[in-house]
């Protein structure tokens, strides 16, 4: 019983351990696997990421020069990042933002020769 009373008194004197989210945000660790990003300037659409992904959430469409990805199926394992030959994939440490509807991320490579990347296209799944 004394242990309980001691714990109560100690906890009364302490600051709360919870944060006042969203005013106070938790910092991410450097290595956190938060969300996946692809730098289309570097991607060569080789399709390795599609093959190794355990949740089959990446589609590489070489005919239409498009790299597609379903963020809601991704399990953030980071295998694709490790295997990408061009190092174009990266896992950012910020967690994926909540969304009110599902979408796919579609990235276009406008012209292979120039290697230009078009902006992010989001469409409803």
């Amino acid at each position, binding site marked *: *019983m004394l*242990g*309980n009373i*001691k*714990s*109560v008194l*100690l906890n009364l004197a302490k600051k709360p*351990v919870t944060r006042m989210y969203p005013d106070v945000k938790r910092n991410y*660790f*450097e*290595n*956190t*696997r938060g969300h996946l990003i692809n730098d289309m300037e570097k991607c060569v659409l080789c399709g390795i990421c599609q093959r*190794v*992904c*355990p*949740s089959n959430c990446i589609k590489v469409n070489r005919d239409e020069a498009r790299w597609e990805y379903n963020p809601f199926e991704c*399990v*953030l*394992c*980071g*295998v694709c990042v*490790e295997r990408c030959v061009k190092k174009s994939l990266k*896992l950012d440490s910020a967690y994926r933002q909540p969304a009110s509807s599902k979408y796919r991320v579609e990235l276009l490579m406008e012209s292979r020769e120039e290697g230009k990347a078009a902006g992010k296209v989001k469409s409803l799944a």
Partner: protein
Amino acid sequence: MSKTGIIPFGPQHPVLPEPIHLKLVVEDERVMEVYPAIGFVHRGLEMLAAKKDINQMIYVVERICGICSMMHGMTYCQALEELMGLDIPPRAKFLRVIWAELHRIHSHLLWLGLFADSFGFENLFMQSWKIRERIMDMLERTAGNRVIISVNIIGGVRRDMDDSTLRWILQEISGVEKDLSGLKDMVLNNYTVKKRTVGKGVLSKDEALRLGAVGPVARGSGIARDLRATGYAAYGELDFEPVVEKEGDCFSRSVVRIREIYQSIDLIRQAVSKMPSGEISVKVKGNPPVGEVISVVEQSRGEVFYYIKTSGTQYLERLRVRTPTFANIPALLKMLPGCELADVPVLILTIDPCISCTER
């Protein structure tokens, strides 16, 4: 005259978020017989082995259980390493021990919280989950994710820890130990907790052996069986004794788990101090040869068993998993008859049930 009736426990129950269904035959307030039913969260993960190649399967088996995900990955990888004759680098083995023990600590703290919740001790629930948060931070900083940390690959581990991270782990683990010292008293020397647990759900040593109980349930009944003593990963090079309590009641199972948290802290310290340098993984070439293999690992809830049959391709022919909760359900059914209805949640929580694990 006493009244007999049947009361269903679960599959939706306030104290247990997981779907186990028990039909309790009660006479007044006393449980006379129990009929279990499982199968509400069967996901068919074993069948996925035919669709995912052996490397992708690592991430599937990790999802069998969220709380001991790392140890599922470890068991699976150890099985395939044995089959393919791979000798993994010593550093990888020590890193696996550190992550496995961190998982054990967070699993036991999670259990302690849920257990306290089952007899209405909300304060203890909050305190133990508060401590657990430090472990989650350690996992996130070292492995990248909080729960499903995906560190194992066939042939080693994916991430290394540098010296400053190892020092930080030692520092944090001392903090956890300090926090725990207050919590330990709240559980072990508390009148209310003792009133609800001492002498309840007694499982004798013979019964535990006969029913094949594993993990803290068996050790709480006096069976000194801990698979870590077989020396897989780096456990052979670390010094520890299985934690055993003799009484076989709810209280001694709780004591086993709390003492195991301290044991894990000690194992992490040993592993950090003996950490060898060198590579963290070996290159794996080709598919596994045709064959069968069995791999067992001591998880936080007890012994997990993997049977793997390969066909010489990149897919497995058969994967069979027996999780510790499945092995402990017969023991639970033995404990329940004779107890009061109000003690049923406490007794169920004392085997630390993980139903999604059981049904895969």
